[in-house]
């Protein structure tokens, strides 16, 4: 019994030392020393996942530690973004931000508890244009649709009230001088389905992919400054006479951020790993992202910070013009 007891105490002591050993690990000396958690504030299987997956394993290998994705959906991205805003700024918890949670939410919702200033940018990954769709048989171009919209009331669907896609249509209305009725739909795919079924006349949101074709849906305009190779025949808003905008504020943007106060060396290290992966596997990654109907647009921390600020300013102005205040 004596011997067993001694053995037991020895085991417990070793165990305690192991636990203490883990918590003494210094975060900065040799980052990363354990896995890095990347929080995706959306439900699994969406555009966020598809933007990140080509990078996940490759960057993990470049950094020497795996990247682990945790989904924390809710309130359009607010739940996950809040979580990271409160996390320790040691580089082991990162935010894979969607525009709704990071940029729109602080403008629309009161009492959120964070703002963009609570995060440090790391890199931009994908920026995919918003696309205007109409039914194939009804209209050949955006101009046709606008002409019709001026004579009778049209209905359009987006993926949510006050969403970026809704703002996009309001912007089009303002500059083209028409007005249509907004029918908010449930989610990214549902608006295009409503269009396919003929329940609405136009949608403006993410790519409809396989639904495009004769008898079905036609893409008529893109929100990006330049044409997209996925839709070579579709003109941009700028080409159609709308005011040229800096960047693409109506795009669906997915980017990586860290909590404010994360040391610069760590940010640089993470960005460096992403850059290395892009330099080495750029072609493959671009292809995978293109397959997911998204647009690769890799930029570094400084550029990301600027883009985010610009878009924030743009959306803020739009909301103010509409008289929308945080609720």
């Amino acid at each position, binding site marked *: 019994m004596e011997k067993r007891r001694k053995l037991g105490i020895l085991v417990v002591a070793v165990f305690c030392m192991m636990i203490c050993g883990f918590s003494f690990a210094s975060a900065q000396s040799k980052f990363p020393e354990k896995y890095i958690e990347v929080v995706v504030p959306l439900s699994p*299987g969406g555009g966020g*996942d598809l933007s990140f997956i080509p990078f996940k394993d490759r960057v993990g290998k470049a950094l020497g530690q795996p990247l682990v994705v945790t989904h924390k959906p809710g309130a359009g991205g607010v739940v996950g973004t809040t979580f990271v805003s409160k996390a320790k700024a040691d580089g082991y918890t990162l935010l894979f931000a969607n525009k709704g949670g990071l940029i729109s939410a602080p403008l629309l919702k009161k009492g959120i508890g964070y703002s963009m200033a609570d995060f440090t940018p790391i890199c931009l990954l994908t920026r995919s244009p918003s696309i205007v769709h109409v039914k194939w048989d009804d209209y050949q171009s955006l101009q046709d649709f606008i002409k019709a919209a001026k004579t009778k009331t049209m209905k359009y669907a987006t993926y949510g009230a006050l969403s970026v896609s809704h703002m996009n249509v309001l912007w089009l209305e303002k500059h083209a001088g028409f007005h249509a009725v907004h029918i908010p739909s449930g989610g990214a795919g549902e608006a295009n389905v409503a269009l396919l079924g003929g329940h609405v006349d136009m949608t403006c949101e993410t790519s409809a992919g396989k639904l495009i074709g004769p008898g079905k849906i036609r893409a008529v305009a893109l929100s990006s400054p330049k044409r997209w190779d996925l839709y070579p025949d579709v003109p941009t808003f700028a080409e159609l006479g709308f005011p040229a905008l800096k960047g693409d504020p109506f795009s669906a943007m997915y980017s990586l951020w860290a909590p404010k106060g994360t040391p610069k060396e760590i940010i640089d290290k993470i960005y460096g790993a992403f850059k290395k992966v892009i330099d080495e596997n750029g072609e493959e990654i671009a292809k995978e992202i293109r*397959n997911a109907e998204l647009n690769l647009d890799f930029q570094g921390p400084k550029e990301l910070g600027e883009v985010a600020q610009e878009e924030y300013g743009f959306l803020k102005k739009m909301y103010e013009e509409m008289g929308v205040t945080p609720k």
Partner: protein
Amino acid sequence: MDVLGHLTLGFSVILQWPNPGYCFLGVLVGTLIGVLPGLGPVTTIALLLPSTYYLNDTSAIIMLSGVYYGAMYGGSTTSILVNIPGETSSIVTCLDGHKMALQGRAGAALGISAFGSLIGGSISVAGLMIGAGLLAQAALRFGPPEYFALVFMSFSLLIYLSSGSPLKATIMALVGVFLGTIGTDFITGEPRFTYGSLTIMDGIGLVPVIMGVFGIAEVLVNLEGEVKRTVIKPPKFKNLLPNLRDWRDSIAPIFRGTFIGFFLGLLPGGGAIMASFASYAVEKKISKHPEKFGHGAIEGVAGPETANNSAVAACYVPLVSFGIPANVVMALILGALMIHGIRPGPTFIADNPNLFWGVVASMYAGNAMLLVLNLPLIAVWVRLLAIPYSILFPLILLFCVIGVYTIHNNIWELVIMTIFGFIGYMMRKFKYEGAPFAFALVLTPVMENSLRQSLLMSEGSFGIFFSRPIACTLMVAGIILFSLPAVHLLKQRAFGGQIRKDQRL
């Protein structure tokens, strides 16, 4: 349309290792999580999604599909044995299934549930095979007005879910409607009744509420009695399977359930949830002895359980025809497909014959595996009821807590569950039933959103519900169903008959 040839292709895919292994793994995991209250196919598939990245696409979808319909099989087990729904769609099974268990007929209930699920699952897969394209076209015609009309009609059926006072059932339904409005307004983006709480900004979660009202409350009610007792006495062996009489009573509900489940499952957005309770309501309505429902009528188990499995196959139709997910689980499966670089659209079946027909064949194989898995397990499950309740109830509570927490890792949802646990307990004491409440809670967002979308489309005119053929039919059916009890009552009074006891408010 060379269905037989395609099916042969499918079976050749499913029989290729490692696919049978993944199919079995999927259905096994599905059954287990279906049995555990709180844990559901959504959470499980979400957890498994990243690991499917390392599998090939066919194996991945076969496994995830197996989890989905396996969960439908498993969900009935806890409903019948301990009156706690394993799945939202199993709430209805609690009504009669548990009563059957208390009468010593748990085996029959479990057996009929398993067989019904097999039959429903198989026939609906056939429907998927044959009619995917056509059915999808029909489903496209369902816009907001049609959805509203459908849900309106479903609300009229809610009353049939209760076996007690219709007035109390209506009150419960209205409470469910109120709670269903909590959250962020869909059309304007404004938060309603959220008091700034992030947790309920997307609405009060369905799972915490159901686990509270049906799970915690059930435990609380049972704790009033002798804690050392067992739920029921262990049955004799020959009661473990449904007898001939059970089969005779169940065969028609099973076929009706298959069709109801299939057609409702086709509709994107919550059709499958309506499947089980629509089946229950229909069975009760056309039964020759409706008063037996709620007290152990096997039709009330056979129909709904078949319907919810049948709905599973139907859910795939919008996905493989247009790439539209019919519900959250389908959205996850869509995610799995996209991770593998497949973007489903109208040409999905033609572009990916191995995948599609392989999955179809795997559904047949999976359903068969589930039957083989579940039947012998009935004896095991029934033994569970012989465990003293003092040991059983902490386990039940533990699983409820784990189940709710794993959804969003949010401790406030546990608080919600506890609050609704007490509310549910009060409801039991005052004889208010949970089923109308739960379904009203689920259906209200769909109803409200489709109503407002429809009115936006028609610029305020209610005529839109009657100018479109499908919507008009459903609305008229709903109006008729709503007024039937009143008409019946008036008729009786007019002819001077005595009002039957069960018709009193």
